[in-house]
């Protein structure tokens, strides 16, 4: 056997006094970390297999388990960090591209955390959301440039198609395939109850979920999986996916092993075949080409559905967004570099793209400068972690936010970042029926509804303290924001003043 160069990342600490040998940990670990030795009546752990998903910890009835970072360490080196070295070992072992999941974990600046929110004092009264109505509803879609009247002088009220959301948050794209049936069902049913939308991702729409159509955004991606007339007509809006924050510029790859009967039917591809999404759309090489697809989709759905174009936040995002706003799209979705994924090459996830906060500020400013801001609504995602992130995004100019990692956390994800293994112990990023059933969609729905209900309360509280009673009045209201610890350039891009100014 060759030498194993790779240190176990984690350590299983079992409090032997507390352990009652119920073996729940053993039964619940799809990675096979725990085992029972009847001869010695002891529980054993194979820590090389542990991914720190915390499933065993959460289910241990006597709280006998802890998963700790293994402190077995290589000699400290500020340049050659332990992880850098281990990645070299891994590649030397396999010759392969390193794969990772979920969002960029590297210590890049999180601008949300360097922005503070204003509050009313004395001269501008704050509002108590428990006593006074607060409007959190938003409409996404193209808005008219000016008020027009008919021959009788009445205001024209006909608008281009809109997506109505009860709170300015949606569940962003996660395909059936990358996540489980039960995860999808949780998202769909929660979206319905919350009066918001979830997003099919590029995996098509399972036949069971057509009933949630008015709360569904159907995605058309480069692989065009599962796209046909009924699919396009099923949703509240259609999203063209040009790029994804976690892996801008590359396609996707769902291995054939995850393409079971149901996934195959939904994606309309043969069972067991790899589902490959090309890096580009092979029919889109310009804004004009994009415009053709936008209008093809509008034509196919009788101009009744808003069309979203989703792009990753990259260097020239403002110019790209300007192009999209002129393509006929109704909504632009921008996905920042901390956005999650079910699998991406590590190097790409950790080194490509830009922070969503900067992309959003730049895009909003550019569209306003060009007088085309009302052509489109802006939806931003890529690590929106809390109600205050939502407030900050809206004040920076967003119409709504996309959340996915937060939603998965609500469903039980512990961010172990090994979705690519397909052995998600929480029943989320897996197609193994034994694991899928671990997520009861009833529970999943309730937890998602709870999360966003809590956020809604917080959003209202924060609106109230700013003296704002309608979320529309917060949009682009950058005076409500101040930066801390940011340099001139960052403040300039964000379009906000420094705290104290």
């Amino acid at each position, binding site marked *: 056997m060759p030498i194993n160069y790779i240190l176990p990342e984690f350590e299983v600490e079992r409090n032997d*006094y*507390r352990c*009652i040998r*119920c*073996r*729940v940990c053993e*039964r*619940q670990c799809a990675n096979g970390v725990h085992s029972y030795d009847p001869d010695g009546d002891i529980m054993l752990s194979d820590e090389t297999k542990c991914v720190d998903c915390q499933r065993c910890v959460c*289910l241990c*009835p*006597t709280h006998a388990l802890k998963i700790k970072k293994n402190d077995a360490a290589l000699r400290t080196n500020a340049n050659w960090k332990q992880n850098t070295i281990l990645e070299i070992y891994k590649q030397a072992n396999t010759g392969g591209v390193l794969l990772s999941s979920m969002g960029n974990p590297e210590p890049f600046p999180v601008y949300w955390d360097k922005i503070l929110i204003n509050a009313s004092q004395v001269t501008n009264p704050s509002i108590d959301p428990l006593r006074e109505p607060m409007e959190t509803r938003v409409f996404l879609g193209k808005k008219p440039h000016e008020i027009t009247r008919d021959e009788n002088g009445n205001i024209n009220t006909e608008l281009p198609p809109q997506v109505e959301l009860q709170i300015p948050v949606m569940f962003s794209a996660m395909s059936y395939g990358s996540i489980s049936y039960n995860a999808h069902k949780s998202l769909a049913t929660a979206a319905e109850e919350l009066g918001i939308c979830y997003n099919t991702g590029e995996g098509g729409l399972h036949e069971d979920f057509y009933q949630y159509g008015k709360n569904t955004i159907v995605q058309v991606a480069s692989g065009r999986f599962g796209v046909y007339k009924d699919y396009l007509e099923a949703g509240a809006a259609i999203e063209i996916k040009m790029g994804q924050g976690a892996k801008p510029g590359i396609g996707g790859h769902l291995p054939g092993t995850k393409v079971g009967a149901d996934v195959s039917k939904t994606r309309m591809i043969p069972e067991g075949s790899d589902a490959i999404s090309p890096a580009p759309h092979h029919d889109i090489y310009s804004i004009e080409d994009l415009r053709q697809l936008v209008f093809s989709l509008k034509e196919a759905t009788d101009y009744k559905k808003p069309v979203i174009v989703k792009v990753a936040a990259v260097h020239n995002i403002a110019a790209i967004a300007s192009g999209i706003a002129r393509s006929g799209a109704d909504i632009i979705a921008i996905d920042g570099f901390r956005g999650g994924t079910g699998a991406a090459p590590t190097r790409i996830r950790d080194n490509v793209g830009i922070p969503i906060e900067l992309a959003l500020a730049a895009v909003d400013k550019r569209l306003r400068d060009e007088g085309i801001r009302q052509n489109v609504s802006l939806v931003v995602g890529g690590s929106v972690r809390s109600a205050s992130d939502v407030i900050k995004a809206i004040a920076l100019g967003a119409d709504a936010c996309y959340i996915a990692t937060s939603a998965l956390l609500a469903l039980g994800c512990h961010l172990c970042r090994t979705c690519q293994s397909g052995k998600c112990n929480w029943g989320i990023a897996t197609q193994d*029926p*034994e694991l899928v*059933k*671990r*997520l*009861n969609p*009833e*529970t999943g729905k309730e937890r998602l509804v709870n999360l966003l209900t809590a956020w809604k309360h917080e959003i209202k509280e924060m609106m109230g303290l700013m003296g704002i009673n309608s979320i529309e009045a917060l949009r682009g209201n950058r005076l409500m924001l101040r930066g801390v610890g940011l340099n001139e350039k960052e403040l300039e891009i964000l379009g906000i003043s420094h705290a104290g100014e």
Partner: protein
Amino acid sequence: MKRVYVNEEWCLGCHLCEYNCAFSNSGIKDMVKALKGKKITPRIHVEDDGKIHYAVSCRHCEDPLCIKGCISGALSKDENGVVAIDHDKCVGCLTCMLLCPYGSITTDENETVLKCELCMQNGGIPACVQGCPNRAIVFEEVEE
């Protein structure tokens, strides 16, 4: 009446219900103290073939055969419909075990007959239901 029902679809086969049952019926406040080093004899058990799992406990039948067969009058239905056992009367003949179509009656190491009494003595919400991580076991009213 409210009974314990099992959603096979959601059972993970984790067997936590068995341990929560044994703990709840131990009369001891700490689970470790109650179960450490002991062979548990829960009133609910999980049946499993690796793919299918589900828990089985007393169905509290409308017309319970176990009561019909009980030779000592130890088994009876209380006013709430709960099939209860009076350990002072039980002689351990196990006729109830011979009659229960679901295999819901068991014994402990002292041959005391054990069956689910819906945790009536333990606060009223069955421990198996409370501890089930996936709502595979529920306590509710079902239409007949």
